């Protein structure tokens, strides 16, 4: 294992984290989708590097699936969705963006602290990346919480899966193929279902603002 590959993987990890911050700060939905695709690309890069460095054949397959799904198919679906829903522009966040960035930094610190004892046990090439992966998951979660529209929440959900996938590849050279395929399929199906839901929500409330769902609460 050359220090060079480790450096490359860390670079990809850094890109991933940077994009996660960018997504947290991005108001426009179209830009958000592009960022999501970019994050997928970084993920493909890191997966392919790990595959090349360790000679694990199935990681190439993973990278391929990720590329097809997260860089091509899902962004295309999302783009189509927002075109048909006509919600290209966005969007106020519930908490203002500087505050969110600060919270994000706290989360990153927390995630690194958390990953420290685990990565000491890990034999993997990219153990420092575990903290980054965890930070990505938590920040995507944060994004889901702070967006009031349905589409950014779905993107947050998908980005969370990106973080998980990165954790899997960097810490343990990927999950078994069956699991990976299953997760990929889940994400796809989840995306389709959420898309249907969004149409339903808009038909019901003439808006995609999650705010309207509050009426469903039982008093």
């Amino acid at each position, binding site marked *: 294992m050359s220090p060079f590959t480790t450096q490359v993987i860390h670079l990809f990890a850094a890109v991933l984290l940077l994009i996660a911050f960018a997504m947290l700060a991005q108001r426009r939905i179209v830009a958000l989708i592009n960022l999501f695709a970019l994050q997928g690309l970084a993920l493909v890069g890191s997966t392919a590097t790990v595959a090349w460095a360790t000679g694990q054949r199935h990681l190439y397959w993973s990278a391929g699936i990720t590329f097809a799904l997260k860089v091509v198919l899902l962004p295309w679906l999302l783009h189509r969705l927002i075109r048909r829903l006509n919600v290209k522009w966005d969007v106020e966040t*519930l908490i203002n963006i500087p505050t969110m960035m600060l919270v994000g930094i706290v989360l990153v610190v*927390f995630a690194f*602290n*958390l990953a420290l*004892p685990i990565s000491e046990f890990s034999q993997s090439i990219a153990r420092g990346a575990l903290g980054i992966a965890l930070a990505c998951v*938590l920040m995507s*979660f*944060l994004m*889901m*919480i*702070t*967006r*009031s529209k349905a589409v950014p*929440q779905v993107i947050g959900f998908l980005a969370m899966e990106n973080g998980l996938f990165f954790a899997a590849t960097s810490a343990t050279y990927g999950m078994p193929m069956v699991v990976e395929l299953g997760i990929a399929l889940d994400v796809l199906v989840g995306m389709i279902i959420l898309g249907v839901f969004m149409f339903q929500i808009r038909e019901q409330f003439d808006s995609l603002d*999650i*705010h309207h*769902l*509050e*009426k*469903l*609460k*039982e008093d």
Partner: protein
Amino acid sequence: MGPLPELLAIDGVTVVVVAWLGLGLAGLAALHDTRVVGRVLFPLSALASLALAGFALMGLPGAPQVAVLAIGLPDLPFHLRLDALSAFFLALLGLASAGISVFAGGYFRQGEGTPPGLLCLHYHLFLAGMAMVMLADDAYAFMVTWEVMALASFFLVTTNHRIAEIRRAGFLYLLVAHVGAIAILLCFGVLQAGTGDYTFANMRAQSLSPFWASCAFGLALLGFGAKAGILPLHVWLPEAHPAAPSPVSALMSGVMLKTAVYGLVRVSFDLLGTPAWWWGVVALVVGLATAFFGVVFAAAQVDMKRLLAYSSIENVGLIVVGLGLAMVFAAYRMDALAALALAASLYHCLNHALFKSLLFLGTGCVLHATQERSLGRLGGLLRFMPWVGWTALAGVMAAAGLPPSNGFVSEWLLLQGFLFTGGLPNPYLRMLVPVFAAGVVLVAALAAYVMVKFYGVIFLGRPREEKLAHAHDAGGLERLGLAWLTAGCVLLGLFPVAVIEVIDPITFSLVGRGLAQSGHIGDWLLLAPVSAERASYSPLTFLVVTALIVVATIVLVRRFYHGRVRRAAPWDCGFPAQTARMQDTAEGFGQPIRQIFEPFYRMRRELPSPFDAAPRYRVEIEDPAWSAIYLRIAAATEAVSRAVGRLQRGRISIYLLYSFVTLVALLFLTQA
């Protein structure tokens, strides 16, 4: 022939149970035919009850008989066992239900909520459930039949389910019944001591540590207490009894409360072995509090069925006092006295089953004849309903504990038991138990007061409403039922020694001594529970002497006094018109007691102002258990639910935040 006669008793009881189930299903076939159900099925059911009583009395003196029914879950059959205790309670069920079923045949009418056939099914399921509870020899069979009993009686209580108040009463009953059932289930769980074998035989074989044994006893007292109406779980009784049709009230009050007593005796004397002395004290305190509470509230009631329900609470309290006394004696191995107290308790069970059923049936007749439950609108019914009036008199005398009725015998035996507490080794008990005795006497005296009120206001005096003059007496089947129960009350009072000889095998098997077996019970005429020098009672002599005095007085008055009577217009004291409204009312009669025991009631009174043209006096008496316990539980539940409900904000972001915070907190915890 060999073992055949011995096996007959338990088989006979099982056959009766099957017959009851068959009658219930037959009722389903004749769903809307009141005539078939009333004239055919219920009288047949009464015959089955008689057969049950016969089989039970046959099996009572013999050795315990067991049987295994192949119903239930695979590998978990119903174990049945007929020993002296269950035979006694089965006999009680048979004797009381015979009268009640005959009466019910004439009582149920068309158009009272549940159709008669369905009612017949519920009724017989209820009977069969009670019989099987007393036969059950494992926790599984016991709980299943216990629940059958509870559910069947719930449907019987809510017969007139179109009235919201009755549905509410039924729900309350079901709720308390299930709280009790949970406690009983836990009690059996403790009793089997981790062996996983839930037969009663195994529970008898286990010897629990004092802590777990006390846990089991506490759970049993709670669970069976909920069914029996022990303080503070009595709240369902005054609601459910007035709601149910009268034969059902009679069955619930007379017999079902006794299944709870049976369970308590079974657990504390049989399954747990020798009781600890302080269990007895707990039972004494709880029982006396229940009895006192019951009688004080009965004195304040103006609804006749509610009054009887509170009186049932009082009687259950007295029975529990007897059991507590028996536990204290049994713990100190004073077997003869334990036998005396236990026999008094069981005797009172039997008496209460008969006289309370009788009184409830009497109120049923009054209700049908007048459509009136409130004492304030009744009066003078003895003239219009002589059958009901005179049979109710027998019941009232028994409930008041007047000699020579049966109620006197059991209360007298109980007090005899209290008189011998001087021999207890524990000095505190020696001092305390006489105080309980005084409490029991107070309760007995107040019970007499309550019964005078009940009888005097309903049957004596002048009718308070016009329509009462058209009240019709009980019908043929109803008269038969009333007469049967009256005869039971009278005979149990006149021949106490025979009854005690029947109870003897029970006390012998539970506390190791029988009363009759100790030799000085007296002959058939004279009852002397401990020794003839100390105390004895001869009901027949008493009856003859009382009757002679009464007859002599009547003769003297008629012959000599009335001979000199001069008839003239009465001096009206300035009130020319004397109306029925001038009589003492139930409210007025109960007023002194309400005054004396005011701190125990929660009263709301509306007194009219002196200038009111149409003055109305209203008093509402509320059960303090409601505000002290139940409403607080309800309020606490609501507060907790409201706090939990605050989590539901209807905003996805908040819900996501919950997941997020949970995730971060868990991660933080695993890291630490």
